[in-house]
């Protein structure tokens, strides 16, 4: 099996006192919708930033699409799309101008870029807002625009940090339908979330707590293994006994 992400014994210290990742090990098979699930402060965003080459790990091995995110950043960045937790768009530009900027950074040809932008604006339901300054959008709209920016390069690996925060249930369903479509096209999607109901939509998940991966596998398997009703209960059981390994 080919893996989009391989992480072994990953440690990240922000300072002597703060260890965000504490020996995390993780394998994400290619072409899956994979969830990294854990409460706030569990190390999800740190993990994602390391995978995207934005943070250097303190120790451990990381391969993303077979590349070292620190040493082979340039090659890697052509293959991934990243949606940070913050909106991370230029507030003073319009939605369309933001998308054009990020498209140009991937050298997408002009004509193709226009087509992709129009398609994505339809998908995130922002066609009517394409000329609105981002600062004037609601929180949910900003989030949708941010997702559109991450989808723009048609990445091999799409990394989404809490993509559905502030998104209404109807649109959330649309998002997941799109993720399924992309997955069918061979895209690997890594999503972090602290919503357990959403985690159940992933084919595979890793539960992360205090910088350690405490369980990995299909949500159903984890639920069965822990004799729980749902993923939330499974998580609580696992954190109480300190993981299933």
């Amino acid at each position, binding site marked *: 099996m080919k893996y989009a992400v391989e992480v072994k014994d990953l440690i990240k210290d922000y300072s002597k006192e703060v260890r965000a990742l504490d020996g995390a090990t993780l394998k994400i098979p290619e072409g899956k919708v994979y969830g990294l699930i854990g409460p706030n402060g569990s190390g999800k965003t740190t993990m994602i*930033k390391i995978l*995207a*080459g*934005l*943070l*250097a790990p303190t120790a451990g091995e990381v391969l993303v699409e077979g590349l070292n995110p*620190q040493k082979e950043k*340039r090659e890697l*960045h*052509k293959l*991934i799309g*990243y949606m*940070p*937790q*913050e*909106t*991370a*768009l*230029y*507030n003073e530009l319009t939605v369309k101008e933001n998308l054009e900027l*990020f498209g140009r*950074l*991937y*050298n997408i040809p002009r004509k193709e870029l226009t087509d992709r932008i129009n398609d994505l604006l339809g998908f995130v339901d922002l066609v009517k807002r394409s000329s609105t300054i981002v600062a004037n959008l609601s929180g949910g709209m900003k989030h949708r625009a941010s997702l559109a*920016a991450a989808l723009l*390069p048609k990445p091999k690996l799409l990394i989404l940090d809490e993509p559905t925060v502030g998104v209404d249930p109807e649109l959330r369903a649309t998002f997941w339908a799109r993720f399924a479509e992309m997955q069918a096209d061979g895209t690997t999607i890594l999503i972090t979330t602290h919503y357990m109901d959403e985690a159940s939509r992933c084919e595979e998940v890793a539960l992360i707590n205090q910088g350690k991966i405490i369980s990995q596998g299909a949500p159903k398997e984890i639920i069965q293994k822990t004799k729980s009703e749902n993923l939330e209960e499974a998580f609580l059981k696992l954190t109480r006994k300190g993981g299933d390994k």
Partner: protein
Amino acid sequence: MNIGRTLAIARKQFLSVRHDPRTLALMLLAPVMAMLIFGFVFGTKPEHVPVLVVNGDSGKLAQQFIDNIDHTTLNIQNSTDANDAKNQVTDGKKTAAIIFPSDFSENTQPQILGPGKVLPPKGTKVQIFIDTTDEQLAAAVTQSLAEAGQKLVSKQNASPVTFQTDYAFPKAKDARYLDYFVAGIMVFAITVFTTLLTLLAFVGERSSGTLDRLKSTPVTEAEIVIGYELAFGAIAAIQGILLLAVAYFVYHILVVGSVFLAGLLIILTAIDAQVIGVLISAAAKRESQAVQFLPFIIFPVFLLSGIFVPVQSLPNWLKPFSYILPPTWSIDGIRDVLLRGWSISYVWPHVLILLGFAIVLSVLAVLGLKRKE
């Protein structure tokens, strides 16, 4: 009014300062630094103004005149070649050349022909070849010479010394302080605004996550820095045109040289200021912290780059701080162009130094953006 609540508000302020030691340091250090530099800069008068003396006098009086000159104000070097001395003034190396004629002693003192037979001095002129583009330095020269002349009259019973003044830059003969000041204030405005805008833009890039998003795309750190430089260079070009237009049409400043060359220096100034903004942004997590750096940009540039007081007049220990500020070089270069009418063949060192700053600072900014967290 409830005193408990009032004190709670005051206490909160002290607590927030205590948790942010840098704010505390800045609150205490910045005003002291500002006051110290202000005192040193404005407390001094021009000193060591470089002048050349060509003493062609066959007698001793010219030497006595020279000895009477205040040697702290003027840094006097001797020359034997009047033409070479003048060239050094025209090249901007010296502020003035003072040339004593061969008949100075003879025609300044009364001639005693015999007992009771005294001829009044015929009188002669000392030639001053002076650069008036820096009004303060030029004034220091003429004032020192006038004082030395008076001393000679009172000590040696000589006739009053008259001077014949020639101008190294005739078009800037009547240059006002304003003409001199305008270059400084243009560079100051562009430096402070550009640094501040870039600083805030980059702190915004960091805090809003856009920098992370940029860095997750194929764009390189060098492309980010140079992209910013292109934008701010273009903005500076427009700012420069506007400022020069105001200076010319409202203040009627003297423009002897090429405005395009002055414009080039302004653009380079903006690029340097912009990269400094990028560099400082690495040390600030929030906009509020970025603003704390402002005094450290404003005061040194305001006081040390020669806007008000010529760098020449600063205490020696302050001069190195002057020379490491890009605005010092742009102000000097723009004055050379606007007042002296110098072309690129004279101001290329300024252009090169500003370009050098831009390259070195850009490399540092790129490394700063690449820094691993």
